[in-house]
């Protein structure tokens, strides 16, 4: 029972760590309708920038805001230079563009900053929190809290004046233009926000596995989270994250040693497939009604 509980808790927390990656994806999709398959590479870039800033000798509490500022600017630049020109193109072109961006970043960032894994020390205590026979990993715990805080902040943000504009943009580009909202700026800001989310994800994942290009492989679980929760739903990120994390931990926790192979990717794949077959728009996503 304690084993189940532990898997449940660590799964939920891991899932929330995936939510951190997924949040950036949703922010961009919500406002721009762009599926950003470079979000993993964005997390990698963010992880590298946190490491870089810390290598200058700055403490964590300065390094992370500074890296967030860098990544916010980076998001703005990416939107301005690349995505703005893709408006009106078919989805496959946009998908491929983000994949091209991913390849570019995977060359550029490790090429300049070095490809051996870099450490990030966030000063999180190593010892687990022990409740009965249940061990809770502190990094995941803080990651989970950070994810909840970020999602909460995003929800609050969408209640501000700027956030309302962003919501309007996510509803309809043309009507937003009509009432004088700058759609381009709103989309740019959503890319910047995705950059900030990537910094939190990059710092936390980087502190647990080291910063190198493999951070960009977080995209796959994040995609599962997004599909399950709904591609344009911010609360969906939390629920989807927890579900993907729990299923991806509890099921392998019981199955793996029998199968003799890790079933986590299978579980993740099946989550994606089943969601798409049963409820393509996810738990909280908005169903697209197609007009002929």
């Amino acid at each position, binding site marked *: 029972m304690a084993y189940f509980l532990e898997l449940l808790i660590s799964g939920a927390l891991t899932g929330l760590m995936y939510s951190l990656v997924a949040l950036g994806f949703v922010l961009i999709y919500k406002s721009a309708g762009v599926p950003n398959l470079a979000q993993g590479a964005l997390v990698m870039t963010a992880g590298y920038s946190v490491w870089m800033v810390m290598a200058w000798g700055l403490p964590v509490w300065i390094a992370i805001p500074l890296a967030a500022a860098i990544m916010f600017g980076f998001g703005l630049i990416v939107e301005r230079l690349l995505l703005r020109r893709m408006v009106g193109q078919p989805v496959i072109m946009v998908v491929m563009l983000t994949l091209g961006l991913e390849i570019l970043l995977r060359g550029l960032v490790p090429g300049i900053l070095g490809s051996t894994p870099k450490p990030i020390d966030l000063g999180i205590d190593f010892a687990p929190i022990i409740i009965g026979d249940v061990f809770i990993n502190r990094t995941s715990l803080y990651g989970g809290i950070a994810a909840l805080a970020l999602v909460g902040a995003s929800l609050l943000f969408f209640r501000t004046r700027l956030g309302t504009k962003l919501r309007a943009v996510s509803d309809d580009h043309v009507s937003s233009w009509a009432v004088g909202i700058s759609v381009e700026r709103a989309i740019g800001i959503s890319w910047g926000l995705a950059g900030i989310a990537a910094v939190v994800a990059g710092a936390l994942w980087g502190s647990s596995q080291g910063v190198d290009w493999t951070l960009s492989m977080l995209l796959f679980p994040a995609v599962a989270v997004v599909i399950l929760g709904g591609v344009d739903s911010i609360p969906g990120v939390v629920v989807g994250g927890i579900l993907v994390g729990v299923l991806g931990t509890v099921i392998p926790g019981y199955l793996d040693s029998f199968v003799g192979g890790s079933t986590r990717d299978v579980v*993740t794949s099946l989550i994606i497939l089943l969601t798409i077959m049963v409820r393509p728009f996810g738990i909280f996503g908005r169903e697209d009604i197609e007009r002929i």
Partner: protein
Amino acid sequence: MFYRLSGTYHTSYAADRKLWKIPADRWMVILLLILAVLAPLYVSPLYLGSYVLPWVIWSAAALSLTLLMGLAGQLHFGFAAVMAIGAYASIHLVRFGVPFELALLLSGLIAAAIGTVFGGAALRVKGLYLVMATLAMQYLVDWVVVNVPAISGGAHATLRTPEVSFLFVPVESLAARYWLALGWAVVLTVFFMNVKRTSFGRALVAIRDKDFAAAVIGVDPFRTKLMAFATSSFMGGVTGAILAYCFYRAVTPEQFGFNVSIQLVAMVLVGGLGSVIGSWLGAGFVLLMPIFLTNVVSGLAAGGWVPVSQNFLSHLPLMIYGAMIIGFLLLEPLGLAKIYDNIRKYFLVWPFRHARS
């Protein structure tokens, strides 16, 4: 200049329906074919074995994928898995005692059967969701291959292709392997050019443009989408088998990983969706450009032109390659095929640029 007509003018419907409406095009294709067939005679083994041969095979793969993505408009991000099914099926079939020619066909059929299951998702969703669904299936197939030693070939997950002969010619020497691959690529090319003119091809295009509208005019989306997946997967499966027998000759799961699927999509898009010439050009570009860049960059480095670290140097081709993909999508979304078409059209009416082509 080459075309000797300033524009395209047809006087009969038959002329307009011809595969090659302009004689110069036909002569060029025949010339290319002759050059390609004779390639083993004048291309050094280095270039034949590591450039031309993989290019031919990947062009066949790109053609298979572009039938699905370009003609039928169904996105597929797990095509390497389909090829893997073909490759593994063909090897196990031959080991089981099935003649190679039959094994090729059967491996295509097996790939088609499983690939159609992939297509099941397409009946329900499209666009981004289809991308994700096929992506998930790629991971599933990978997992099965890696985790079932009976498929992947034991502890080292390497499966060597048995010695086979195709129509009594042993598929052993480089030239023989090249000719077999070329033959298959030519078959696919001819098929692809003709399928556009059949009712099936037109149904695919109708589905691509708008599946609801297609249903209204009597094209069954259910059947057509599944047929598209089946056809394309059959082609992909046989191409996978050809890839295994003619190029790698020792199959490992990494040869059909997720990144290969992405490469295939990149080939199709960079070349130009749904275009024959685009598939060839796109495959050449995506496959050979990183190799070419690596060689040029290290050539420059050896000459002392780029005084940077080994690490930066080895990442440079990746950067340029990523930038080129982005550049293509931004500057010429219709791909290399469109660039070729522009050049061709320029010469078609040359020197009367004002004339309509």
